[in-house]
């Protein structure tokens, strides 16, 4: 299969991209608004073509622990869910981080807390970038804002996860998961052979060979002196990721006097609001974080010296705005606008909030 342009949902794009990437296993449990991921995988039946395993587990807990096992053996494995299901997976994510194993987790967010609603939301930002599970760990977090990026970030997520031996998350929401857009699917790659996995991942628990000692994966270490050393190693890795992997997009920022800061679907709404604001003579640009962790602090700090104010637009009560304020450090006014519980703000409402909170 070569490159081709198709029309599909963000969720479907993730499934197709996973097969084409050469993922070894998907383990999941259905939940709206992301069920098309597992549905598409089941329809495509990749076990007959690439040999990829697709399994509907008995629960989210089972799914994330199947990912844990697959990851320990060096396989490219993934799971997906939506907010309440992702909460259930947090223990497993912490274990993956504590064991330094690569895996891809997709969260197509819906409004919470609790079972909440099935409509789009971005209220899992804190959960994703500030912990979620227990312990001092970080989750590489990618925030797609188009169906194309849903497909592209499967590849990017796995590349970063394997490069740093760390779990990575695609943090998206019901808008991007459910909407259809044009997408160019990546060319297909074959899955790695067991020999290739042995070479590329010498840590993989694939069965001991005479040349090496057994590979043992555990997050348990009862000696606190060693556990501190482990943590220091994790932290050194996180600093390395912060140095190398920050990604963001600047749109109409060259002449901007004001800045919207938004990710994912909120960034799409902001683009329309910018068109409208510029028609009214307000020079507004958009800074869109693509990696939510590592967070693009430096570029936001630089814009704090240039613009008169920033409006952080999110589908939540104000989460990323805290990180923007940390980066800005009081240099310029930073306000938040968001809708809660599954409501997506309209471009008109964003423009009104901008005028009210920033320009007055």
């Amino acid at each position, binding site marked *: 299969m070569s490159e081709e342009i*198709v029309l599909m949902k963000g969720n479907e794009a993730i499934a197709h991209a996973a097969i084409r990437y050469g993922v070894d296993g998907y383990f999941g449990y259905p939940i709206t608004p992301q069920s098309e991921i597992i549905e598409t995988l089941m329809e495509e039946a990749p076990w007959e073509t690439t040999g990829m395993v697709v399994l509907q587990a008995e629960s989210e807990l089972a799914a994330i622990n199947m990912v844990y096992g697959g990851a320990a053996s060096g396989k490219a494995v993934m799971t997906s869910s939506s907010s309440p299901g992702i909460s259930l997976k947090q223990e497993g994510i912490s274990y993956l981080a504590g064991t330094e194993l690569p895996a891809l987790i997709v969260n197509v967010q819906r409004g919470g807390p609790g079972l909440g609603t*099935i409509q789009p939301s971005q209220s899992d930002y804190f959960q994703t970038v500030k912990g979620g599970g227990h312990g001092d760990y970080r989750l590489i977090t990618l925030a797609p804002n188009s169906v194309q990026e849903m497909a592209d970030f499967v590849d990017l997520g796995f590349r970063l996860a394997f490069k740093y031996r760390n779990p990575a998350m695609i943090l998206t929401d019901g*808008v991007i998961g*459910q909407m*259809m857009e*044009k997408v160019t699917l990546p060319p297909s790659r074959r899955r790695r052979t067991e020999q290739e996995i042995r070479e590329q991942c010498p840590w993989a628990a694939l069965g001991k060979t005479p040349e090496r000692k057994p590979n043992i994966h555990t997050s348990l270490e009862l000696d606190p002196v060693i556990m501190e050393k482990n943590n220091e190693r994790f932290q050194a890795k996180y600093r390395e990721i912060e140095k190398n992997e920050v990604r963001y997009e600047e749109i109409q920022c060259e002449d901007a006097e004001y800045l919207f800061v938004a990710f994912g679907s909120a960034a799409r*709404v902001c683009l*329309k609001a910018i068109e409208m604001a510029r028609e009214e003579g307000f020079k507004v640009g958009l800074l869109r974080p693509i990696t939510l962790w590592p967070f693009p602090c430096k570029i936001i700090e630089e814009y704090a010296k240039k613009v008169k104010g920033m409006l952080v637009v999110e589908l939540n009560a104000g989460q990323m705005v805290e990180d923007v304020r940390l980066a800005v450090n009081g240099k310029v006014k930073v306000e938040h606008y968001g809708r809660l519980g599954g409501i997506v703000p*309209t471009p008109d409402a964003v423009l009104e909030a901008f005028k009210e909170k920033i320009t007055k």
Partner: protein
Amino acid sequence: MTHEIVISGFGGQGVLSMGKILAYSGIMEGMEVSWFPSYGPEQRGGTANVTVILSDKPISSPIIDTYDIAVVLNQPSLDKFEEKVKPGGIIIYDSYGIHTPPKRKDIDVYKINAMDEAVNMNNDKVFNMIVLGGLLKAVPMVQLENVMEGLKKSLPERYHNLLPMNKEAILRGMEIIQLENKAELNKIMN
């Protein structure tokens, strides 16, 4: 040129698939497209709608507040979207599902008796294609040959024998759509 369209009706009337075929037709025409559905419990028995945007420029927000065109196939849809059509825009409605026709005078109002026609054609499955034909007659945003290509892409291959029947339905829709109200310019100016 950008067309911001909402298509709304009862779940099961083929609203979402009509939107998908329109979006695929747009791709075949070389346009940028987005398709965003209402999803969830409201699709079962209630009202389903889809926002389709076709544009020669990249599409910013897939979620919008006002529309150039509203295709409404039942009364709740008309009640919800009549006020959200931009002045100078278009409403297309199926008279079968709508008892109180649109009142606005600052928009073009088209009526299409698609349900009756589907019954005449002895095939209620082509209802949404009759409506699509009407829409394309009112606003020829994509050429018929590209619609047929879009249909081919949207339908699984096992249904490709149904393509001629769908084409016939689209052509019927183009014939039977009627303009009921032409937007009054002075009303738009206000």
